[in-house]
């Protein structure tokens, strides 16, 4: 019965690793697709307040406004008062309208009328600054806003 000759030795065959690159590439593509490289360079501190009664933001039609104290490495240059940031630069309340119109034009034309303003505001900011921003938004007729929060609840700690 030489047809069924036993293999010599009991050593394990090496695991075939030829498909390893394929698997890794698959993972790679997944991460490449889901990665969002941060668009704006944050100049202000962002410790968002916590809330749990939240809704999701539709990304394609949103304009971001950041506000808060300048983060520690900019504090020397810009002081420690609460400031507003739109896009990559600081804006003050008076130049807010111009900066917002500019940001709105970057969106798709058919979505420009249903724009949602996402307010990313640090928890230690004064409400007065937020009110000023909202006043300007009303003048521009951009009345849909969303206060971006982090998950959790202020009551719990």
């Amino acid at each position: 019965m030489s047809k069924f000759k036993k293999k010599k030795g009991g050593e394990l065959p090496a695991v075939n690793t030829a498909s390893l690159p394929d698997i890794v590439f698959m993972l790679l593509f997944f991460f490449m697709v889901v990665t969002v490289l941060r668009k704006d360079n944050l100049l202000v501190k962002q410790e968002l307040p916590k809330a749990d009664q939240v809704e999701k933001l539709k990304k394609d039609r949103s304009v971001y406004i950041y506000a808060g104290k300048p983060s520690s490495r900019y504090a020397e240059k810009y002081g420690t008062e609460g400031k507003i940031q739109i896009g990559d630069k600081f804006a003050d309340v008076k130049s807010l309208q111009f900066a917002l119109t500019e940001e709105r034009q970057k969106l798709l034309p058919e979505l420009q009328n249903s724009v949602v303003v996402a307010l990313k505001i640090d928890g230690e900011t004064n409400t007065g600054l937020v009110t000023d921003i909202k006043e300007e938004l009303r003048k521009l007729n951009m009345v849909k806003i969303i206060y971006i929060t982090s998950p959790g609840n202020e009551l719990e700690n």
Partner: protein
Amino acid sequence: MARRATPEVNAGSMADIAFLLLIFFLVTTTIEKDKGIARQLPPDQPDNVDPPLFKEKNIFIVNVNKDNQLLVESELMDLKDLRQEAIAFLDNGGDGTCTYCKGRRDPASSDNPNKAVISVQNDRNTDYKTYIAVQNELVAAYNFLRDRESQRLFGWKYTEVKKALDEGDYKGNEDAAMDKIKQIQDMVPLKLSEAEPKKSGK
């Protein structure tokens, strides 16, 4: 010259290169998930328009001072009690027109959920954190009542179905669910007013 077979390229290091890229993307990825409290601002109005009049008992006044303390209906209150107090106010049903209210039916409090207005007044120096916490509690009060009514009428929770509809993964007839959502919103409308904040110390 005799043709030689081209030697095969060694692909053994392919995995290493792919791993390197993979690790780069793993490290740089921040899967962003922006969520928050959505609001619609009132449109800009000229100054000479008179504000609409409400009966005083239909207004629930929440005052937040610069030290982040709450004054609710002229009483000092902790943030944790605000939700219950707001639910009691909205659910009161003082004049008997609200058939689904389960409140105390106190004639000195709100008449009907669709007449009741919650007014929040902030100081300019209130922390934004406190402001959001107050808004969150008030929205929670509305959501509690909406959940209760949708549970009673349709057997599902308002917040869950609303979330599924927003994310587009609602199973079933979306239009019918939308109509029911609207119906609940009409029964318990979100009437949150914000007064102009006062200057500190005035």
